[in-house]
């Protein structure tokens, strides 16, 4: 039932296009394979069995037949040998020579004789084959015996072979198969004078050799008078003839294979039964083993994979009952799971970073747009600032003029006569009134100050716009740029940031102009200076900027004595979006951009920092660009 269910289920699964359960598939597979193998094995074994059984059967029965034939042979031959001794007996000899005068003697003789404890009917025939004596009467045995249908009183022809010496003895069968007749020549001198013929009852041989209980074979004894006695199975031909036997009778045998077929059929049934049991047992065992060694590990792997898919970090238990392949698969899957887990972690991080980057990119885009806008605005601002500066310069000049004019006017008032004063009283009063509104001196001085400051401010605005223009300029071409100038201009741009944090010391050597994109180099410096400024929170901040020409490079070193960078952050310092600043304070792109720019120039940037001591950034910029 179980097999049937598994089979139908497996078939159903196959038909229904639903992936079948491994266990059922395995069962189906095993049942099919084992059944086929059992059938094949059964077929081979049946053939082999048949062959072996036949061989064994034939061999053993052949041996049995041969043994039996030899026994028959011996039975007769033993008696023949004993009877032969009788033919040497003087009484027997004399009787065949002088039958009439020896009747009494020969009767006594045969009465006294026994052949292996038995007395048989013995007959003497003379040289013509005429019966001259029979012991039948003295033994009181009257069993009918005839070698041939006609009276056996004269059977010379029957003994021809003996008389003519072509045979030394003759063993024949009576027609009714009740007797063996062993006939031996009786010699006197060198002549054969008669025959001693002895009747051995067949019954005696059958009982002695148990010939009635022969099975599976047929034994046939054929005598020279072509009479055959057969024992054993009836329905076979005794077609195998033994080699010449001592007794001289032709012994042949046949083996009855019908019993072989029966025993083969029995053996086949047992074999089929065994095969079925073995098939069932092996299927069961295979299913159990398949379950232990394949299905269960696969199920565990399935559970493991499920857990893995659900994001857990599952643990795959080691199992002893798995094959090395499954073990390797488990190991690989475990390994893979670990990697997946790590990758997932990375992915989460990357995802986070990506999301951050996306924001940053948006921000950058904004910034880039802003930069362009700024550049545009700076450009637009530059013109008004130009004329504002001009105007302010002019205003300063005009201020000086007005101040001079005012002092001259005020000194003239002092110098006015009272009349004059009177006459000009309203005006003077108005002036006096105006003067009450503001402190003129202060205004004049302050105006001066305001103008000066406005000019300074406007200059700063100009500088800033100028810087903005440079910073925001993209698609920049390399030009021969004085790096020191870049340093200076950047310092100017960020001075407002720096001046609250540090002092700036510079050691700028005379440098040859380098092929680079000045705006981008400015951006590098600006980032470095601002970062340095941010690192120096104390009051004794010092920014040291050094430039020098080394070989084909210009080497710039920017050092601060700020807080330094933690070692674990050092390896990420050039990563995009890496920042230790508060969210919103920095984008984390500064150092990354620096790195990209320097690398783009074929240069090098390295950072050396010690926590609490300070940070030094060294930049190498090649004098000549091979490819930009």
């Amino acid at each position, binding site marked *: 039932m179980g097999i049937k269910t598994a089979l139908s289920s497996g078939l159903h699964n196959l038909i229904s296009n639903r992936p079948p359960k491994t266990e059922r598939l395995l069962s189906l597979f095993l049942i099919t394979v084992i059944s086929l193998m059992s059938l094949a094995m059964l077929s081979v074994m049946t053939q082999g069995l048949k062959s072996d059984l036949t061989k064994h059967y034939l061999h053993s029965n052949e041996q049995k037949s041969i043994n039996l034939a030899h026994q028959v042979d011996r039975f007769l031959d033993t008696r023949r040998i004993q009877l032969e001794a009788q033919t*040497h*007996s*003087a*009484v027997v*000899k*004399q009787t*065949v*020579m*002088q*039958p*009439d*005068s*020896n009747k009494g*003697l020969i009767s006594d003789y045969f009465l006294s004789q026994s052949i292996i404890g038995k007395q048989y009917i013995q007959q003497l025939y*003379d*040289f*013509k084959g*005429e019966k*001259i004596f029979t012991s039948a009467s003295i033994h009181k045995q009257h069993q009918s015996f005839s070698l041939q249908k006609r009276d056996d009183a004269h059977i010379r022809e029957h003994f021809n072979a003996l008389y003519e010496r072509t045979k030394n003895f003759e063993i024949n069968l009576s027609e009714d198969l009740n007797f063996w007749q062993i006939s031996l020549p009786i010699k*006197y*001198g*060198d*002549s054969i*004078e*008669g025959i001693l013929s002895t009747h051995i009852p067949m019954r005696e041989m059958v009982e002695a050799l148990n010939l009635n209980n022969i099975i599976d074979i047929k034994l046939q004894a054929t005598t020279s008078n072509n009479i055959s006695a057969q024992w054993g199975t009836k329905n076979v031909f005794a077609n195998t003839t033994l080699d010449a036997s001592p007794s001289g009778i032709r012994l042949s045998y046949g083996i009855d294979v019908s019993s072989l077929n029966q025993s083969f059929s029995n053996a086949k049934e047992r074999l089929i039964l065994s095969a079925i049991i073995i098939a069932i047992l092996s299927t069961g065992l295979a299913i159990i083993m398949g379950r232990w060694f394949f299905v269960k590990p696969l199920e565990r792997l399935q559970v493991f994979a499920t857990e893995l898919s659900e994001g857990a970090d599952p643990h795959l238990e080691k199992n002893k009952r798995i094959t090395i392949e499954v073990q390797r698969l488990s190991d690989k899957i475990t390994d893979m799971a670990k990697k997946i887990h790590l990758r997932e972690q990375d992915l989460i991080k990357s995802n986070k970073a990506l999301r951050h980057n996306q924001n940053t990119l948006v921000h950058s885009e904004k910034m880039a747009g802003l930069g362009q806008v700024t550049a545009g605005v700076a450009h637009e601002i530059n013109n008004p600032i130009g004329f504002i500066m001009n105007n302010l310069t002019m205003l300063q000049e005009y201020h000086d003029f007005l101040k001079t004019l005012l002092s001259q006017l005020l000194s003239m008032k002092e110098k006015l006569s009272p009349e004059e004063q009177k006459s000009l009283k309203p005006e003077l009063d108005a002036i006096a009134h105006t003067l009450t509104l503001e402190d003129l001196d202060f205004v004049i001085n302050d105006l001066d100050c305001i103008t000066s400051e406005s000019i300074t401010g406007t200059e700063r605005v100009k500088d800033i716009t100028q810087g903005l223009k440079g910073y925001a300029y993209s698609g920049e071409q390399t030009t021969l740029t004085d790096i020191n100038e870049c340093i200076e201009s950047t310092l100017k741009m960020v001075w407002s940031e720096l001046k609250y944090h540090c002092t700036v010391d510079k050691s700028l050597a005379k440098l040859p102009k380098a092929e680079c994109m000045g705006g981008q180099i400015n951006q590098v410096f600006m980032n470095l200076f601002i970062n340095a400024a941010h690192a120096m929170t104390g009051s004794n901040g010092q920014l040291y900027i050094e430039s020098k020409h080394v070989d084909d490079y210009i080497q710039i070193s920017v050092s601060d004595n700020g807080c330094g960078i933690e070692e674990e952050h050092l390896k990420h310092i050039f990563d995009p979006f890496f920042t230790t600043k508060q969210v919103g304070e920095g984008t984390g792109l500064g150092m990354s951009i620096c790195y990209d720019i320097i690398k783009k120039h074929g240069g090098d940037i390295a950072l050396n920092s010690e926590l609490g001591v300070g940070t030094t950034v060294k930049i190498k910029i090649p004098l000549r660009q091979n490819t930009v």
Partner: protein
Amino acid sequence: MELTSDHRIRLIQSLFICFLLCSFAWGHHAYADTFENKPSPFRIYLDADQTNSVSSGKSIELGIRAALSESNGLLAGHEVELVIKDHHGSTPRSRHHLEQFLADPHALAVFGGLHSPPLIAARDYINNNQVLTFVPWAAATPITRSKTSENWIFRLSIDDSKAGKVIINDTIQHSGFKQPYLLLEDTGWGKANKNTMTKALSDLGYQANGIHFFQWGIGQHEARTILENAVSNGADSFVLVANAPEGITFAKAMLSLDKPRQRSIRSHWGITGGTFFQSLGASAVNQLDLRFIQTRFSLLQEPLSSEGEKAMAAASTVSNSTLSPTDIKAPSGFIHAYDLTRILIAASEQSPIPDDPKQARQIIKTNLENLRKKIPGLVKYYKQPFSSDVETNFDAHEALGLDDFVMARFDRHGNIRLTEQSPSNMGEANHGN
């Protein structure tokens, strides 16, 4: 090929001549058959042992042929064919030969051989069927003594009714033994001898130390046991009635005994019929004190009688070689057969003999029983050797008498030497009653 007329004529002439020649030849043959009327041959059967006692058979044959040669191989004008039959000593074989004889329209007479049993067994058959039978050797008493008036068997040989006496006389009187042990073959011959010998012994006031009947083909071991027992029982000599095969066995058995236990043997003459001397060898035979009975004639006696010379000459003639007396190994057979054949010839010449062998037999038998002519023979001069008074005369068909027997021995060469010379005057020997 085209035949011309000349050719045809010649061919016809040739055929005619051939026809004439053939006709003449046929006519001559028919004439010869019709007018010459040559008598059909008589056949004499020799039914003897040519196998086991071959010497006897051969010597009898030689004797017959020698005697016949003296009458040019004719018997009453009929050619004589000698038909040799070998009965091996077997009664059935002998009977078979007698049957053959009776079936043969030319068969005239039968000569028997050495063995008595076949003749004893066949005696009545012979007499009933009127088979003219001559016995030149077999010694058994009953052979020539018919139960009825029909007696067709004529013997010229030792007769056991006398032989036993001769042998016993030699044993007791000549050799001086007192405890003879009788070793007799278990046949009619042996039994007949038992009677005569025990009677001879008792006539002399003795009795046998023991009697044993042995079978033909007896083994040497059994023979030795018999001898041992007899010697242990005080036998001082053995009287043996045996033929050559058993004689050889007993001789060997005797020689196998310790020398002091060996005894003298006095034997019937059966031992001389075969290869007794040849089988044992000269030295063995000479170790034995062996004497056996013979008829009172020896071819070796010197000077040889004129009849002896004649017989040897005739034997040489029929043998196609010159024979000396020592060449005849069983001389008794030769001597008796020769003498018997002479008697047969004489009987066939006494009156006309019909051509029909059966009728001839009757005439010859009558003539034998009434022979008028004295017949010179080797053993003696036969004067009416047989008579017809078979019912009253015990020795009516015995040609030899007691005086015709003597004891003999083998010399170093195996020749038989008589211990007494035959009487020089052979003219008037008795007819053996």
